[in-house]
């Protein structure tokens, strides 16, 4: 039994699929003279197969993400695959040296890798990884192994990997992956967030699971308790089947009430919204009881894309969002990336402290042309449904005023062009820096709503790098400082009459639900999997019970005491969830 961090609840029982990023071991074989042409044909077959796979990936990406950026990467891969330098040279090596195609291909790949190492331009140098990717794909097809991509499985699998990239999880999207276990990762890593929104159990931070799991091994993932069992005994198997059955039953029961409001027994109602990244998720999250989209991330537009998205690229996606969510509301967060992510497109300098550097709204204000373009697209789309704009990482009133000034200019521009948009589109501030929370009374005067982003708020108020494993233990959502900042933000917002929501991971954590309810937040926006559970918790208490619990919790002096107290209270009230 292995213990890691459970980041997405539920139990999966199935077969492991080891996503091994290590290079395939290629050995050299001599080919008999009369077999050479057959070897060449085998190589051509592998190329053809690789090409078909890439075309499928491309179609899936275009369809799922509705964006051409990712698809273009795949186009580049196809061109590499068909590149005569690569193909002819590999074939020549097979013919001249009478060696197996794997060996010939590896030789060509190594030669290209060496050439690219000499290249000075950092952006072009990066293409080395594309060539390696393509090479690996061909090799896999040559060896006859199933390509290690995360879609197109014919049976359910539990993916075991050292780490998963955003691209991996994008491919996993609604596929046959029923769980995953990784060596690396934390609660707030991209993959953890993704697993929760896909509602598949996941355990991360297992350190070395990759070294002793093989594809095909029977495996159990308990994403609630953070446990992974490889090759379970019959007893373990039976216990977990029973546990899985109970978990499924509870969820099934909860799903009967998805259309009920999140309202306490004495009538205090909060809005339950969903955080999403892909438009395809919309029907699903609405069916799970989301009352709108509380956070639509727009970062994927810029990631992996070889060029910057145009206004039309943005507009098309936002329009679909508005239409699909209508008549409910969707909140679009403007670009929340650091310069590091789109550096290659904009030649931004490396930063010593990217987390504290030029990112989110700071980046948008500096590169106001990009910001304007995104705002134009959001405003244009606002004619098709109810949209809200949210600025990430506002640190004080000046940034809010600057952003609003740009927004006003963009509105004037559109008006003078005779383009229709929602003149009163609500504009909100994400509260995720202590300075914003402390000056929330000032910000509230010029904002239409607040949304507390707890992932960063915790990181900045406790001063921990959430990616750094040495200080990960300090990442405590229930730290007294964090609770005080939340309380202060809610009070400041309410005294100006604006709603205060939360779109951080904490909003979807059942352990925190009563505290947040007690602090009188108006809106919780979360991953899909949590929605039914959070609703159920809200629906089974009176507001005063929650208030009492919140204030009692805040009377303790350490995060540990608070956590122990809350866990005790919650597990006695809701034994089925804890």
């Amino acid at each position, binding site marked *: 039994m292995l213990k890691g961090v459970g980041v997405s609840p539920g139990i999966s029982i199935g077969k492991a699929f080891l996503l091994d990023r290590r290079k395939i071991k290629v050995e050299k074989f001599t080919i008999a003279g009369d077999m050479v042409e057959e070897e060449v044909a085998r190589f051509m077959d592998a190329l053809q197969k690789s090409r078909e796979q890439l075309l499928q990936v491309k179609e899936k990406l275009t369809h799922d993400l509705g964006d051409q950026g990712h698809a*273009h990467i795949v*186009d*580049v891969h196809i*061109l*590499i695959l068909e*590149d*005569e*330098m*690569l193909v002819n040279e590999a074939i020549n090596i097979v013919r001249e040296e009478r060696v197996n195609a794997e060996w010939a291909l590896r030789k060509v790949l190594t030669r*290209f890798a060496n*050439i*690219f190492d*000499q*290249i*000075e*331009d950092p*952006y*072009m140098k990066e*293409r080395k990884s*594309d*060539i390696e990717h393509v090479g690996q794909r061909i090799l896999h097809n040559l060896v006859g192994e199933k390509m290690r991509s995360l879609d197109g499985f014919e049976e359910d699998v539990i993916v075991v990997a050292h780490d998963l990239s955003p691209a991996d999880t994008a491919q996993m999207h609604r596929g046959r992956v029923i769980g995953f276990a990784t060596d690396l990762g934390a609660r707030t890593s991209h993959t953890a967030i993704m697993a929760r929104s896909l509602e598949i159990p996941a355990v991360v931070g297992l350190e070395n699971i990759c070294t002793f799991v093989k594809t095909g091994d029977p495996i159990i993932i308990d994403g609630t308790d953070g446990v992974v069992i490889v090759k379970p005994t019959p007893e373990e198997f039976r216990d977990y089947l029973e546990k899985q059955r109970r978990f499924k039953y509870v969820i099934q029961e909860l799903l009967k009430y998805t259309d009920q409001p999140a309202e306490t027994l004495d009538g205090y109602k909060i809005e339950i919204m969903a955080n999403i990244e892909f438009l395809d998720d919309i029907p699903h999250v609405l069916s799970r009881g989301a009352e709108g989209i509380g956070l639509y991330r727009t970062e994927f537009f810029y990631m992996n894309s*070889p*060029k*910057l998205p145009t206004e039309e690229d943005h507009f098309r996606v936002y329009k679909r969002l508005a239409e699909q969510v209508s008549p409910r509301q969707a909140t679009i967060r403007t670009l929340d990336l650091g310069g590091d992510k789109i550096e290659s*497109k904009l*030649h931004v300098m490396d930063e010593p402290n990217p987390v504290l550097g030029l990112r989110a709204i700071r980046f948008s204000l500096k590169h106001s042309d990009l910001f304007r373009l995104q705002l134009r697209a959001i405003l244009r789309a606002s004619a098709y449904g109810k949209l809200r704009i949210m600025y990430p990482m506002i640190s004080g009133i000046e940034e809010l005023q600057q952003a609003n000034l740009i927004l006003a200019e963009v509105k004037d521009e559109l008006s003078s062009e005779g383009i229709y948009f929602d003149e009163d589109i609500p504009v909100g501030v994400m509260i995720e820096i202590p300075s914003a929370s402390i000056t929330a009374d000032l910000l509230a005067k010029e904002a239409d709503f607040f949304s507390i982003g707890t992932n960063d708020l915790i990181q900045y108020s406790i001063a921990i790098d959430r990616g750094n494993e040495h200080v990960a233990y300090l990442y405590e959502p229930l730290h007294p400082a964090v609770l005080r900042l939340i309380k202060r933000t809610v009070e400041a917002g309410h005294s100006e009459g604006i709603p205060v929501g939360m779109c951080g991971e904490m909003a979807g954590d059942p352990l925190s639900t009563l505290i947040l309810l007690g602090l009188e937040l108006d809106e919780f926006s979360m991953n899909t999997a949590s929605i039914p559970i959070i609703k159920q918790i809200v629906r089974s208490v009176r507001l005063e019970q929650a208030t009492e619990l919140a204030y009692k919790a805040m009377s303790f002096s350490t995060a540990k005491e608070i956590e122990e107290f809350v866990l005790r209270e919650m597990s006695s009230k809701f034994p089925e969830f804890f």
Partner: protein
Amino acid sequence: MPKQTVFIKNKLGLHARAASQIVNLANKYTSEITIQKGDVTANGKSLLGILTLDAPLGSELLVDVNGSDAQELLTKLIELIEDKFGEKN
């Protein structure tokens, strides 16, 4: 056979997207095409070849086209480079 010297004017240079546009264009023609930068020569129908030229903004390239539809390919290619591969900056 037509030859022409041209300078790379787009900000990102002959990166993957630009190079793939060249390859896609060249593949529509039967003519052979080589692109030379300094003492390195690449086949204009090979993405990898073009990338290995390592040609950022400002690079001087010698384009050499050989075949029945050579002139038209050369003209189209120069247009593409002059148009900065459709990049806005």
